[in-house]
């Protein structure tokens, strides 16, 4: 059944008094406190939605390794992460920059020229890999990020599908 009135005040609304409304506000607060939605969930959903419509391969994380960073003394680690998909292996190394951002160096195997996009919550950065499959992002904001490896523009010969990595925290 559709509600008979088109978007006005409904009888149901009219029958609620101030105490009811206050009570509902209270119920909302109680559940917000006791069972809050994970704060980053909308962001993760947005990531996924942004990838729709791409013909994609999803890479999976196969290895992660933390090493004390040579670039910055202190607790910060340099991380090496490897992702695998059917057509491609993506390895990245994440190093802290002094300004709080991160440097990301990457390699594709087999080596090839591709367009590499780094999606972050703030912006999308794009670089291209060279024929050795190397690429680098000098400065990436910290937080959630995700790599999309697209076929290189110039080669229309179907150089493989886009590959995306799971979201990772830089």
């Amino acid at each position, binding site marked *: *059944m*559709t*509600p*008979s*009135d088109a*978007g006005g005040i*409904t*009888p*149901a*609304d009219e*029958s*609620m008094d101030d*105490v*009811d409304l206050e*009570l*509902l*506000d*209270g*119920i*909302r*607060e*109680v*559940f*917000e*406190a*006791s*069972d809050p*939605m*994970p704060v980053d*969930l*909308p962001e*993760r*959903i*947005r990531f*996924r*939605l*942004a990838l*729709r419509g791409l013909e994609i391969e999803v890479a999976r994380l196969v290895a992660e390794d933390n090493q004390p960073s040579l670039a910055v003394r202190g607790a910060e680690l340099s991380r090496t992460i490897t992702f695998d998909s059917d057509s491609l292996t993506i390895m990245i190394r994440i190093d802290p920059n002094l300004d709080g951002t991160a440097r990301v160096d990457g390699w594709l195997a087999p080596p090839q020229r591709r367009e590499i996009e780094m999606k972050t*919550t*703030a*912006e999308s950065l794009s670089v291209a890999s060279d024929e050795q499959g190397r690429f680098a992002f000098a400065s990436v904001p910290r937080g959630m990020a995700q790599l999309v490896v697209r076929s290189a523009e110039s080669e229309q010969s179907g150089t493989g599908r886009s590959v995306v990595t799971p979201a990772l925290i830089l």
Partner: protein
Amino acid sequence: MDERTPITVRASQTERSERIARLVTAARQGSEAALGEIVTELSPLLWQVARATGLSVSDAEDVLQTVWMRLLDHLDDIHTSASLTAWLVTTTRRQAWRVSAAARRQLPADNEVFSMLPDQGPGSEEQVIIDDQRRILWRAIGRLSARCQELLRIIAFVPRPDYSSVAAELGMPTGSIGPTRGRCLAKLRALLAGDLEGSSQ
């Protein structure tokens, strides 16, 4: 590029409805930012809808992901804030029940009945509800029937102007939602007033 307007809770309800309708139109035309804003605004409601069915945190997250993906195929049929909210709530609830029914089949029989709320106090985590009033309210909610708990939990998060279409979608057409909602709220009020001494649901 990415403009995430903080949700201004104070914005009038009508303004909000108009804004959501505009966002839906923009999203239909492919605006990722608009779609993102809708996700940010309505996910907290859908979270409660999913969790009210007893889903685990990770199952609830999966359900929300699924529902938002599915919305993309239905944007053409949705034009108002009310129909958007109603569609999202119903789809989330249906999907959540499907997932939780599947999960329950895999559990031993004694887990079959789970109560939506723990007996006392907020969840297993931190004691987040500090003030007494809220604690009393929490306990009173816990004494309502499962049906009333779910209904009030959802309704409490639904933007008021969208309320009647959500109610209709929940299988409680305007004719009967009033009494049902009224009964749940009335019972809650009675519990809070200490009137329902020892009476069962």
